[in-house]
């Protein structure tokens, strides 16, 4: 297990090197001159040239890339052209915001999705199965922005139960420590604020988690059905085990492996794909950070943002792979 983990970690190095090259190249293929964009429409030619020079945009690509990687290795993600602030300090609170949202979205997706899938498989062809799979079908095809707006309209505007935007009550902000607001409010021993923060998480988590929930439900159902028809389950049943025990103790363990793959992939997708949800719920996450940066041709932020997201994606996949061999020792590489 240890050797395997180390081997997987070493394999990260070429992957990460490739990623830096790709992010660097993609960004330089985007049309538009950043100096012109920063200085605005009325900038003079000399001002543009000066700025290009001070930003190093006149150097050759290999030199720009070399500088970029050297800085990265020192933990320097660069400076935002737009705000002139260190990207590493700017991106941290956003990463925390995106993590928090993704975490709750995936928890929502897993709990509802896995259980709906199990029950559907258990009660195959029942009305529950039929309804759950109908919901799952709608769930995968629903546009996130529409779902988000409907949620806001019903639960914020009409019923007034839940807040429509942001991470916390802006009239009464939390003093950040870790930037994970649920954690921060707990650290402050301010439980009423924890409830406030959780309430802010409900609608965006559901909006973000609905598609993965539907995918997970379908995956769990088919995986469970397959396992339930296998010989060892028949044996367990023959020994007189209760239905609940059969499903949750014996069947799920084998059925969960393909589901785990889906969960891992979906978590990665959510991390990078939260832009829409973050925009509609004004969630100050890393997706919107990169999106804004693209609008402004803020090269360093685009590079670092994409790199960080890609990095997390790789790490999550690594964790999923490691989990496989933990859950099922037969899986060896």
């Amino acid at each position: 297990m240890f050797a395997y983990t180390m081997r997987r970690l070493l394999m990260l190095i070429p992957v990460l090197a490739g990623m830096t090259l790709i992010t660097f190249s993609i960004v330089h293929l985007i049309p538009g001159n950043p100096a012109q964009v920063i200085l605005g429409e009325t900038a003079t030619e000399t001002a543009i040239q000066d700025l290009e020079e001070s930003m190093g945009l006149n150097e050759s690509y290999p030199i720009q890339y070399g500088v970029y990687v050297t800085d990265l290795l020192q933990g320097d993600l660069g400076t935002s052209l737009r705000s002139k602030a260190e990207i590493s300090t700017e991106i941290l609170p956003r990463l925390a915001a995106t993590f928090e949202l993704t975490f709750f979205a995936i928890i929502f997706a897993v709990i509802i999705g896995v259980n709906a899938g199990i029950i559907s498989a258990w009660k195959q062809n029942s009305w529950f199965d039929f309804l759950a799979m109908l919901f799952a079908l709608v769930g995968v095809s629903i546009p996130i922005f529409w779902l988000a707006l409907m949620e806001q309209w019903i639960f914020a505007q009409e019923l007034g139960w839940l807040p429509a935007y942001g991470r916390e009550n802006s009239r009464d902000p939390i003093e950040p420590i870790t930037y994970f607001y649920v954690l921060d409010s707990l650290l402050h021993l301010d439980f009423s604020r924890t409830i406030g923060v959780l309430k802010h998480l409900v609608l965006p988590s559901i909006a973000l988690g609905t598609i993965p929930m539907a995918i997970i439900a379908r995956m769990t159902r088919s995986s469970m059905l397959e396992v339930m028809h296998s010989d060892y389950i028949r044996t367990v049943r023959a020994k007189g085990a209760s239905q609940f025990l059969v499903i949750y103790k014996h069947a799920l363990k084998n059925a969960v492996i393909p589901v785990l793959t889906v969960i891992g992939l979906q978590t990665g997708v959510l991390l990078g794909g939260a832009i829409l949800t973050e925009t509609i719920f004004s969630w100050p996450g890393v997706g919107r950070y990169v999106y804004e940066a693209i609008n402004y041709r803020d090269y360093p932020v685009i590079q670092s943002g994409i790199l960080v997201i890609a990095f997390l994606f790789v790490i999550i996949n690594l964790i999923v792979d490691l989990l496989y061999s933990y859950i099922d020792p037969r899986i060896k590489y």
Partner: protein
Amino acid sequence: MKPRFWLLMVFVALALVVVACSGDDDSDAAGDSDGSTGEDTEANSGSDGEDVLVFARGGDSESLDPGSTTDGESSRVTRQVLESLLDFDKESFEVVPGLAEDWEVSDDGLNYTFYLEEGVTFHDGTDFNAEAVKTNFERWADPEHEYAFEEEGYVYSMYGTMFGGYQGDDSHVIEKINVVNDHEIEFVLKQPLGYFLQNMAMSYFAITSPAALEEYGPQINENPVGTGPFKFESWTKDDSIELSKFEDYRKDGLPKVDSVVFEVIPDNAARLIALQSGEIDIMDGLNPDDAETVEAEEGVELYTRSENNVGYVGFNTQKEPLNQVEVRRAINHAIDRQAIAEAMYAGYAQPAKNPLPPSYMGYNDDVEGYEYDVEKAKSLLAEAGYEDGMEIELWTMPVARPYMPDPETVAEIVQNNLSEVGIEVSIVREEWAPYLEKTLQGEQEMFMLGWSGTNGDPDYFMSSLLHGDNVGSSNRTFYENDEVDELLNQAKTSIDQDERAELYKEAQTLISEDAPMVPLVHSEPVLAAASYVENYVPHPSTSESLAEVELAN
């Protein structure tokens, strides 16, 4: 699978807590975190009962160093923290005292003396004086200045635009700045500038504490220190900016609220929902289509900003066939401005005939403009040799702007209008940054864009959009007319405002004949606020002081 079961229990518990807490009354929607019953009267207060005003907008500020940005979302905030020597009247661009109580202009228009208010302190406790004013202006004018932060990429482009360039440029109008005494400062100009006082009232030229420039260096854009009614507290990027009341503000009794939070809510519909559910107090950038809803609804009020912009379809006047004036006039006749104003702006816009908005000094109402007339358009086209029609490209903006809330649909209406006179329009779509860049380089045939005023002076519209010197910068029609240029130059250097008005009127007549663009509409951007918000007056410049705003409970 025990851990999973445990996780499930935790989630169920959390869900129960959340559901249990959401049964309260409406004020809970405001995320009332103290969990109390929350009477409506407490909805806009923080946990300690202070009045907190929440202002929501679509985008974040770029920089809180006012001179280093041209972005309206930035000045909206800096305006609360920093003040300029002069100010604009609450509702118009009329110049009123700011940090300078009074001022004198020499007869030749070359010397401006400002008398500064005494006993004013910056938020950091240091004194505001003439030396501070001088430091700020020199920092913008001189890229080598120790506080210019050129190496960090700071450019004071608005300074360059409004004062004819930078120190050392021939066209730079400020020759030198003399500190007469602590409270008296003199600006000596190389040549007169008709809108010098207007410039001094712009929020871009607000005065920062020199001690803060020393302390924060290039980080001054995240740590603004001025003399304004509110002090800067914190900034969470893309999320919120918090300001708090400056207790020693120079005007007694102001500001009225204890703190202001500028929230970013990018989605227009979500912003309106947040207002309706009581989470925010004021929202900018309402969809014109939602104005009716807001007007009909109790608890929220509709506000408008007076028109201070023009949305237009420009011609690249140097490209075939648009280099022919008959073709340009024909297109002007073929577009139904009235229909566009009604369909796209829900009535919050008036059809335009000049590039200058009607409220501006020098607006020429005698210009007839081009009425919607399909037959006339056809005969003009025939005159130009295009009786069999033609094909043309129309570039459409990818982003919404106050003067153009839905560019795509406007492009389609124009396309429709022109097809009736035999012009086949193909719509070209580009991303915003390349759109601006390519239209500067003249790749477009017809294109859509607009312009919003910043200092209330006609020069900002007329010269920027149509002066030959600005071809390749803000003049994207590539229109050059020596006679017009001469009129605009005269108007710029004259300090007799009546004379200036006449010159601009003349220029508009010539421009209308040459038809380098189709001025479409002057829009009145709409916004909304909760009914308990009092004394809120939206300013045409898009940034207004919130010092007098009150939350009535």
